[in-house]
């Protein structure tokens, strides 16, 4: 026990003396969680509050195109630009401007859109009325009207998801206009009063947040971001810890320790205690930032629906699994050049498959399988269970057990590797 205490105290002194390293260990995760949360929150806000300038080329200049323009102008997401320097824009110019990224989107309304749509709608309505023998002037000859295309030019750098969202928005708007036209023709043909058909949407959406113990579970971006990036930062302990072990080998202290009556398990024990403490301090600082600093930065409140004790329990087991990875890498690696880049890249990969950036359900099937064996995913789910779902200890036991098992297996592997390599 005394040896473990001395090994722990030595690790404490080594960390304490490395002031620059300490600053990086505690400050950088805070910078990370603040930066990422602000960026993600402001991106969402930006999408709702700012307007995207859209180039519009109206080759129709008729009722329908005017309706589209009017709808676009009323929509909070777009700012319609139909002239540059007082002159209208050609399709070629629009193509070039969007290609260069000066505009994110250009809409080209085809010539005769109103005329063709009206003709098509009238033809369809007349056909229906004929079926019911209501039409006094039956249409005998069906005119061939080609499908009308509204062209959309997108900045090639625009993300697919963003592009799809815009496309869906415009599609929705055009559908509404099309429906209105059908209603209008029916009204005209049946000679009934204007607006006899109710045009308003019949089906709407009502978002209901699930409740637990009569408390509404309403997640916000901060509740998603803080645990995800906190976990990401906790796992970065892999890098300094693996470097610490490799350094012991390169500076010769490990050679001396191997001749001393101390087991590798005890040496590692000291490291586990100190680096777990570092993880918990990191976690506490990030929790405090979420709770007390974020509201001052105009970010949503970081509400923790579950128990703080459970939250720390999750942090402990997540920290232990991160530490076990650092120990295994440090034990196997022979140089810092091997351990540092490998450790850093591994953390990013673990974060990616763990669902820090993209939700696991949105990943390809194969990646979802990897996510199931990722300690970062277990930790993240556990955090969400406590922070958002207000789950109890029993509910998080399976994930906590997996994290504990992961720690034991990797630590045992490191000890076994050292034993095989150094047994005399």
């Amino acid at each position: 026990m005394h040896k473990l205490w001395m090994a722990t105290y030595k690790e404490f002194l080594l960390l304490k003396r490395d002031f620059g390293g300490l600053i990086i260990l505690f400050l950088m995760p805070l910078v990370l969680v603040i930066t990422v949360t602000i960026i993600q929150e402001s991106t969402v806000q930006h999408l709702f509050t700012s307007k995207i300038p859209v180039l519009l080329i109206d080759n129709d200049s008729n009722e329908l195109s005017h309706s589209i323009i009017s709808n676009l102008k009323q929509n909070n997401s777009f700012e319609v630009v139909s002239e540059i320097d007082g002159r209208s824009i050609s399709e070629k110019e629009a193509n070039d401007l969007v290609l260069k990224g000066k505009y994110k989107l250009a809409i080209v309304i085809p010539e005769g859109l109103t005329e063709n749509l009206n003709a098509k709608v009238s033809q369809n309505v007349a056909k229906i009325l004929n079926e019911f023998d209501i039409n006094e002037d039956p249409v005998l000859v069906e005119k061939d009207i080609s499908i009308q295309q509204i062209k959309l030019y997108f900045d090639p750098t625009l993300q697919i998801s963003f592009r799809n969202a815009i496309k869906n928005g415009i599609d929705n708007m055009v559908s509404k206009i099309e429906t209105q036209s059908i209603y209008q023709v029916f009204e005209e043909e049946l000679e009934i009063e204007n607006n006899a058909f109710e045009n308003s949407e019949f089906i709407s959406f009502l978002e209901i947040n699930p409740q637990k113990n009569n408390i509404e579970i309403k997640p916000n971006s901060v509740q998603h971001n803080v645990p995800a990036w906190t976990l990401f930062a906790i796992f970065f302990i892999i890098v300094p810890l693996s470097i610490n072990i490799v350094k012991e080998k390169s500076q010769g202290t490990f050679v001396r320790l191997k001749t001393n009556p101390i087991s590798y398990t005890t040496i590692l024990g000291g490291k586990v205690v100190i680096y777990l403490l570092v993880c918990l301090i990191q976690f506490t600082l990030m929790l405090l930032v979420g709770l007390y600093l974020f509201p001052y930065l105009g970010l949503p409140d970081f509400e923790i629906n579950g128990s703080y004790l459970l939250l720390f329990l999750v942090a402990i087991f997540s920290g232990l699994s991160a530490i076990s990875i650092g120990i295994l890498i440090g034990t196997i690696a022979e140089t810092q050049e091997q351990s540092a880049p490998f450790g850093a890249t591994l953390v990013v990969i673990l974060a990616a498959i763990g669902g820090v950036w993209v939700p696991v359900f949105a990943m390809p099937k194969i990646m979802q399988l990897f996510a199931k064996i990722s300690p970062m995913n277990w930790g993240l789910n556990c955090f969400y269970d406590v922070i958002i779902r207000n789950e109890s200890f029993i509910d998080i036991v399976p994930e906590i057990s997996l994290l504990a098992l992961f720690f034991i297996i990797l630590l045992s592997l490191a000890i076994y590797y050292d034993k095989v390599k150094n047994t005399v």
Partner: protein
Amino acid sequence: MNEVLIDIKQLAKRYKDSDFFAVQPLDLSISKKEIFGLLGPNGAGKTTLISMLCGLLKPTSGIFEIDQLNFKNNKKQIQYLIGVVPQEYALYPTLTAFENLMYFGSMYGIKKKDLKIEIDRSLKELGLSKFSNKKIKTFSGGMKRRVNLIAGILHQPKVLFLDEPTVGVDVQSKNVIIQHLKQLNDSGTTIVYTSHHMIEAQDLCTDVAIIDNGKIIAHNTPQELIRSFDNTTNLENVYLSLTGGELRDYA
């Protein structure tokens, strides 16, 4: 006849992916209270042999016993019996000399109070008392070597292994280290050390073995070795006669 402390039988080492034996099967006995010098050019096999005896390297074949104990069955007991002073400064640069010594000393289960007394005494004897609370990274090479030595002897080992303990230090530091080794030997510690310094070995050792290409090519007291060569008055000439004058660069 002196009592044998280290008994080596057919001990050999061939590194992985190497066609040659770094240490060819050798027999050697080192008696209690000896200062045994293992001399040889670079790459001769000195460090490999001493590393096997310290338990740092697994022998390819052969056996050895220290105080009638072998590493396979009595690793812990042997670790308490031996002290090791590696060639590199095996110290934490950002810890003070005292903190380093407290850490390494505590690994032998020495009581905190006794350990402090032992550290203070050793630091004083090696002229480092006033630097006790200075960080190792601020120390000169000679000072580091002396702390390195203290770290290996705090538990008062029965046998002390030193791998080139005076390499790269000034004459003053070297003198202090050598005098301290003599004192330790006088108090009953058996010393096994490797060196390139023939004059130092001639002065210090009670017994020397010259090793080359992994083989012991001469083994006797320094005086006997010198006597066995004509027109020679020092160990360096004996050494050169046995190992040749050509360079021993290796990679």
